């Protein structure tokens, strides 16, 4: 539909048709979570957890980090973080953790009346160490037991003893889930769930890679929205249909030369979680100035398939080697690779006050990435959920100055 037909001025940003399907998928996720909680088989799970294992055992997963994004986008982050701060939690603590603790304390004041009550809490520290203490706090409030899958950080290549250690952790996870839920793991079922994950991730990766085209068919906010099923419903069969629909739409855009934004002039890389409370305003505001983000380090984090002879080994390898569990050099290499492959003009690194694991080292990486690629970058500071830490005027100046370098 053109701007004239709609009777409004054309927006700089083109919404995805797949958005409607996404709403349906997410609605189903909420309903399934509520039902599972009532039936006694709901686990809260961190975003980088090998969720294929509990899913194959008939356990439903729900994701507090994703709920943190909901809290942020509904602009209730400061209020819910405040409820945790009243309990004595520091403002320095991750705002996903604070808002989660706050919403568990006061579900009646939280979006969707809070996350459904869990029967188990499954934390994997491949994304950060805070998750364990966060889940411990939730455990105290809900009585649900915590399981930690420990994946020590990797510097360089993963060592055999490291792999064996994580492998043992996965075996213990199965024991924990059997004891907690009376469930058992069948290899055949795990292979089916893993195959569903692989298919969805495969389609997702193709959509991401299509952004190498000019104009880019997807912008940052598109990817942060459509990654939701990959984060929270990996292993489910019905999300494959969603990722097929998304990929079809992306392919159609590419074949017709339609970009995610109308007038693509500058192509940038985004690093880190987005400011959820301002995600559309932020990226669409830049879209009006011709700035598109064909790639980011976050939505590229899910890749690889659990397959082969030993499925636990495969899961241990994939989930240990996630972006945030590797050293600074691996992060720099990834950024350099994305800038080159996606033909980007520069990069914006969001230093997220909450997420120390993601943000630590950004000043050094910025220098190294510029040295290796020759493109300029800028670090802006704020938070993903706690909008009290987001100073718009200061961020504007830094981004404007970066964009002026391209004039």
């Amino acid at each position, binding site marked *: 539909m053109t701007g004239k037909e709609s009777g409004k001025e054309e927006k700089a940003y083109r919404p995805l048709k797949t958005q409607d399907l996404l709403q349906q998928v997410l609605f189903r996720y909420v309903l399934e979570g509520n039902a599972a909680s009532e039936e006694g088989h709901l686990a809260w799970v961190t975003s980088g957890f090998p969720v294929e294992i509990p899913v194959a055992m008939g356990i439903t997963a729900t994701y507090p980090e994703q709920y943190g994004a909901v809290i942020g986008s509904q602009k209730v982050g400061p209020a819910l973080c405040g409820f945790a701060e009243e309990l004595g939690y520091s403002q320095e603590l991750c705002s996903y953790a604070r808002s989660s603790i706050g919403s568990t304390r006061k579900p009646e004041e939280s979006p969707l009346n809070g996350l459904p009550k869990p029967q188990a809490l499954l934390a994997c520290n491949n994304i950060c160490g805070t998750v364990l203490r966060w889940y411990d706090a939730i455990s105290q409030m809900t009585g649900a037991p915590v399981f930690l899958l420990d994946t020590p950080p990797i510097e360089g290549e993963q060592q055999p003893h490291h792999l064996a250690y994580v492998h043992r952790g996965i075996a213990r996870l199965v024991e924990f889930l059997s004891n907690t839920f009376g469930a058992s793991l069948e290899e055949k079922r795990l292979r089916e769930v893993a195959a569903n994950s692989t298919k969805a991730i495969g389609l997702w990766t193709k959509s991401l890679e299509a952004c190498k085209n000019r104009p880019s068919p997807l912008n940052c906010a598109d990817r942060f929205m459509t990654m939701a099923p990959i984060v929270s419903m990996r292993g489910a069969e019905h999300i494959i249909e969603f990722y097929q629909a998304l990929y079809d739409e992306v392919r159609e855009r590419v074949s017709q030369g339609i970009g995610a934004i109308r007038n693509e002039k500058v192509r940038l890389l985004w690093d880190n979680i987005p400011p959820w409370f301002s995600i559309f305003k932020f990226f669409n505001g830049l879209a009006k100035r011709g700035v598109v983000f064909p790639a980011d380090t976050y939505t590229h984090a899910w890749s690889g398939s659990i397959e082969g002879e030993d499925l636990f080994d495969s899961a241990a390898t994939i989930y240990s080697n996630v972006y945030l569990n590797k050293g600074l050099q691996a992060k720099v290499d990834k950024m350099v690779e994305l800038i080159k492959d996606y033909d980007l003009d520069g990069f914006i690194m969001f230093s997220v006050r909450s997420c120390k694991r993601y943000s630590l080292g950004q*000043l050094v990486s910025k220098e190294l990435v*510029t040295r290796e690629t020759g493109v*300029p970058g*800028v670090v802006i*500071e704020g938070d993903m959920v706690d909008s009290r830490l987001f*100073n718009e*005027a*200061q961020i504007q*100046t*830094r981004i*404007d*100055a970066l964009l*002026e*370098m391209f004039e």
Partner: protein
Amino acid sequence: MIDSQGNVLGSHLVPTGASGAVAARRCLEELSRKSGVDATGVSTTSTGYGRSLIDFAEKSVTEITCHSIGVHNLNANIRLLIDVGGQDSKVIRIGENGRPTDFEINDKCSAGTGRFLEVMARVLEVSIDELGPLALQSDSPCSISSTCTVFAESEVVGRIGAGESSKDIAAGVHAAMASKISTLSKRVGVVTPVCVTGGVALNPAFRHYLSKQIGAELWMPDNPQLTGALGAALLSLEL
């Protein structure tokens, strides 16, 4: 305000106050009065915080780019610019074409800005203009360890209570501030010759300690508070 050849016709400085737009209009009127040239209607570029609120400006450009272009116009050899103002401090790497190629801003901590010196001058009961010369009289600066303006103020009060002289305290205050700016500069990379601008550049003690800490001579333009405005005016020529 400049002519089409880039010659400066006049300048005027007013505090922004509660309304940037009102201050800018007042500045324009004063500029017309002082220069004898009607400044209303000339091509104008706005810069700095609140730049987008100046309704009569055709273009708004960040102070990062404006300072860079302004300094380049005055001295094309400069590759590193350190600008220390009342609200923030920035270090800008200037490319050969006068455009910034990299920058860092301290806009989180007032201990790296002119406000730090204003607060300390008040505690020491001297004017801001007297603070620098007072510090230069010291040959034994006392150490100010606090990294926050508010707590540094308590520390200075403590030093006064301990009987330390005003000149040694003033010197310590400048050294502490220069140390912050020096760290920021080293992050961008110190490339000589280095230029220093902003209101704080007028303070000789700050220049002395900064030069010492970054290990480089500093070049300062005649009007270090106006290089951003000069850059903005030069950009208006392109309109």
